[in-house]
């Protein structure tokens, strides 16, 4: 899931969360956006939509890994935390594929 601002929507993007107007669904999950849908969305009072695809990361992979090491500093002796750290490292790496 990726959060994009309404001006960055492009035809072909697929909604990952429905877009609501009041309490009714205006465009449902899974809808492929076309030109008309996008221009109608731009005339509504919403700022973002959630579409398929992976989130653009605010920092580089190397920076993310350095920060991970910092958060876990002094914890290298704890096998359980080490295991959790490995899972988090895999998870972060997956965000950059």
């Amino acid at each position, binding site marked *: 899931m990726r959060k994009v601002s309404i001006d960055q929507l492009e035809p072909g993007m697929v909604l990952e969360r429905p877009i609501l107007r009041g309490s009714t669904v205006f465009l449902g999950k899974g809808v492929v956006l076309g030109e008309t849908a996008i221009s109608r969305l731009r005339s509504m009072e919403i700022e973002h939509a*959630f579409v398929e695809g992976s*989130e653009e990361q605010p920092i580089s992979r190397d920076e993310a890994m350095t920060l991970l090491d910092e*958060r876990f500093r002094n914890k290298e002796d704890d096998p*359980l935390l080490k295991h959790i750290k490995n899972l988090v490292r895999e998870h972060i790496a997956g965000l950059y594929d």
Partner: protein
Amino acid sequence: MTERIDIRNMRTRTEAINALPTVPSALKQISAMFEKPRLSIDELSGFISGDPALTSKILKMVNSAAYGFPNRISSISHAIMLLGFNVVRGLLLGVSVFDLMQKNIAGLWEHSVGCAVAARCIAQKKNLQEPEEVSICGLLHDIGKVILILHYPREYETVLAKARDEGISLFEAEQSRFEATHADVGSWLARKWRFPVNLAEAIEYHHTPHLSRQAKLETAIVHVSDILVRARGIGINGDMLVPDIHPESWTLLQLTDDDVRDILAELETAASEAEDL
């Protein structure tokens, strides 16, 4: 070395939240309402519905990925029906301290929402009856930090600086300066506000989960959520480091590697939504 702050004074003082000029009047009203021995569903829903800003914040929250209801919840009474009285009460408190969190400890709100999401996810995996109640435990577990900073602004600044400079946790830094920690303060208020005992205990023991007697599972869930959220680096909550993990909590929950991967994936989605709440 300055004198440590005595526990009896602390309890009396921190419970008197309505005496503080720095507390917004909305939060004072909520505090007074929660102290009443009998609060009815109508009173609660009337109070929230009378304030459009509060209403929309709470509805945004229950309709976010953090709760994951397939159909939109469109009113406060609907939310109370689906989620329960205590969950909506907890959400009301959560969104009401939002501004205080943002202003006083950058990142604490994101941390709290992250813990709410992780806690709900774990509660579902463990087939708990009320995963939303457990998510409120996550949302409110660090509320004592805000209360401490409001009552002891100067002292708490030194605590924050100490944690930062010495690379210790905020919990440890608090222990060196006060007779009680944010965990104690939060639980005092949870009890004064008549929250269920499992919420009070999850707050009280989230850094010392082995001491919980009546809510071992909820406390373990919040303890582990806190660690996973910090491990992923969501929010800051006053200190950066991943805290020590209590192995008994981990053993109690029996999370598989795949469970942890799922929780991390949910956190990713929720983090991008939390900015909008």
